[in-house]
């Protein structure tokens, strides 16, 4: 497995899934498939309608008390925050493994 990204481990757990990069943070009509890995600059309340389907969350900005981290821990899904460049590096549909225990994103 190849390490493609590192950040702060904000919510534990490991999951494999397809990347879904959310470019517009103030958008209400985003549809995602259950289990997709949400990749976003940072979380705003506009994630509400799709966050419950997410398999994991990866953000560019924020620390372990950020809203993304709080949401992920409450829902029990892995989360990596503060990667600085996830939205630039990760592409829609790419299959990755999110390791929320260590804050690492792998590709097989």
């Amino acid at each position, binding site marked *: 497995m190849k390490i493609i990204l590192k950040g702060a481990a904000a919510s534990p757990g490991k999951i494999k899934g397809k990347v879904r990069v959310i470019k517009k943070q103030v958008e*209400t009509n985003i549809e995602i498939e259950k289990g997709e890995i949400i990749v976003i600059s940072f979380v705003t*309340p*506009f994630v*509400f309608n799709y966050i419950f389907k997410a398999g994991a969350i990866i953000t560019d900005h924020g620390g372990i008390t*950020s809203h993304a981290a709080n949401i992920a821990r409450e*829902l*029990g899904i892995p989360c990596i925050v503060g990667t600085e460049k996830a939205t630039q590096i990760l592409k829609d549909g790419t299959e990755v493994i999110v390791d929320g225990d260590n804050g690492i994103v792998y590709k097989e």
Partner: protein
Amino acid sequence: MVTMESYTRNNTDKLIDEFCEVIAVDLLNRSKEPGVDVWPRPIFSPSEGVYFIHKELLSGLHTVLELLEQNGLTSLEIAKLFMYPSRIVHLMYQFLEKPTSKIETHRRTQVAKNLLQYIDILRNGNLFCKNKKNTVWSSEEITNVLSNLPIKNVSNLSEAEKTKSIVSQIIVALSCYCELLYFANLAFGREYHGPYVVNLGQILVREFYDLKPSFWNFSQNFPFTTAKFLTVYPQSLEIQFDFAGRLYIHQPLGPQLLGIYIEIDGKPISVENEKLEQIFKMIQKSINEALKEIKDMTKVQLMTKYVEAHFWVLKPLNDRVNIEWQPSQELYTRIQVEQPEPHHLRILKTLKDYTKDERVKIMMMLFDPRCSFDDIKQFDPRF
């Protein structure tokens, strides 16, 4: 160059020194880039809001506190008007922009001392959450709560996993709703507190309040004003708080839920999945209405709401002395015509050039109500 030593020596009020250090360290531990990862970004930075708010809000706060004292209210009574401690901490972010006169500096320092006293009262003497607990309830209150409130053991429920999942979804939904109301300052509408150690495990209390402020249209249809969740987790789960009431947990919360008690508008709610799903759907509907309203707002419209959210927090205090809670007409006009240029934002953007210790010193000066920008400029002329 102002060294940390001279900076501390020149400021004798230890409580304010401690406040500056605690808030600076917490904020820098929270994120490498304070303020970058929070709503109302990407529309505007919270710092731009501070630019508009700080002068009028802090001077209004000074006036109203004086009037309340003149009317004979005790510190305890004034503290209770704020309701919860973490919302007071979030008001103190207004110190980031600086006073322009000696009298303003003096008043701000007085306001800071008063606010710290109220937080201390509302946290039962645990002002800075030094033991990593946010002790809004005293030991008597927690004993009283436990003897009177029937906390449901989740493992006894027929569909326990589903119950845990819906409870988590409701808590996330209410947090999102709070963020829509109060932007990054979620603490204006919610207080998480505890953990309180009991026989069952440890209780984390999540209170959502002031959910129908009049400055938003969408909030008028929200189905309730307050919601309280007493959630019990295993003793092994490390639950910690910082001074701002932010929760530090490294483990997933939802799946570890052992017990639950829910109150909405002061009335207990039966912990049945059907009932919980109904509550979630009501919140979901309200959030969708809110998102629709907010999505098409301009930056100026959204800034107006951001400013109003701060002044709304002072409403219970203003009401006691018959002062309108809204900002002045002059401030509404400034929001329309003025391009915000927050001085402190320029400083925050340079933080990455400094060592960790230097970053803490700069943040301490930024939060210090006794410091002017001229004082900070001595640290680095670029400021």
